[in-house]
């Protein structure tokens, strides 16, 4: 009687249905525990467009130009050794610090520890050592010494 009068039955049924649907969409995850956004996270809002434009202007110039410009405005610039790894079996590419790559008898293990990724036997390092660049300004802390980042400017 109460259910019929209040309409709560219909509302409850709808909530149960919607909860079941949306819960399923959000439970997907990518390899290695990285959180995978659902495919609906693709709508570009006006705010998103603003950030995309700003980021694309930074990305439109070579890294060397970004280094020169930052150094000219007083930034401290560090570099960290990176290697590129390709796993053709799972179609995954990685650009990671050399310290995060372990070569074992079974193949390559990345990010050893709780979030490690064990790659297939076909996986291999595909680049010579190259660098990622870290920019710090003013009171921003320098990179943790454990990361072995080298200051270049």
């Amino acid at each position, binding site marked *: 009687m109460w259910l019929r009068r209040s309409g*709560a*039955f*219909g*509302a409850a*049924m*709808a*909530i149960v*249905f*919607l909860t079941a649907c949306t819960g399923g969409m*959000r439970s*997907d*995850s*990518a390899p*290695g*525990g*990285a*959180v*995978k*956004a*659902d*495919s609906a*996270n*693709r*709508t570009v*809002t006006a*705010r*998103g467009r603003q950030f995309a434009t*700003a*980021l694309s202007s930074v990305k439109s110039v070579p*890294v060397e130009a*970004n280094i020169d410009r*930052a150094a000219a*405005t007083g930034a401290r610039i560090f570099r960290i050794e*990176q290697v*590129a790894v390709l796993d053709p079996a799972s*179609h*995954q*590419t*990685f*650009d*990671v*610090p050399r310290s995060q790559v372990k070569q074992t008898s079974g193949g390559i293990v990345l*990010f050893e*520890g*709780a*979030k490690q990724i064990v790659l297939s036997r076909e996986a291999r390092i*595909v*680049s010579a050592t*190259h*660098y*990622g*660049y*870290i*920019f*710090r300004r003013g009171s*921003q802390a320098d*990179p*943790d010494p*454990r*990361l072995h980042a080298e200051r270049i400017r």
Partner: protein
Amino acid sequence: MRFWVRTLVPMLFVVAVATAGAGEAYVNQPSDGGGGDGSAYPTAPPGNMCYLASGLGTSMGLDSLGSGFTRATLGWTLSSGNSYKSQVRTVAVGGDGEITYDSGWVDMTPGDTDLPGGQSGYATQTFPDGTDYSGGLTITDQFTNMEGQTSYADGMIYPPDPVTNSC
């Protein structure tokens, strides 16, 4: 008849309200500090961030490795009928609008290696914990097919509106 009216009308009302809310939520809902698999997003000022994948990109994720590094992971799907060379670049910008990390373009398929079309995969890049990306972070995978045509998968993270918390 009255039963159906009293049952279906509220049901449709709730569905309509929830669908409208979900529509907004799907527009790059700020992360709630944790993903469906229980892993936590790193918190960078101002806290929750918006996630967006575009172009050939299908997903964008970020998590701290606990070893001094954070990784950004971009999911992508390539068109079939070709094979592709891949170059990846990650750039982060701080709250002051200045660059805080730049990987430069990294060649992932040197020599005669390539990625087959029609497949889905992931590109992962890392940067040090503590990097300020409150002005936005982007990871781009540039794919070039054997005819020299280029296409892109993009993933972006950016802060929500500080007042409305919307993306």
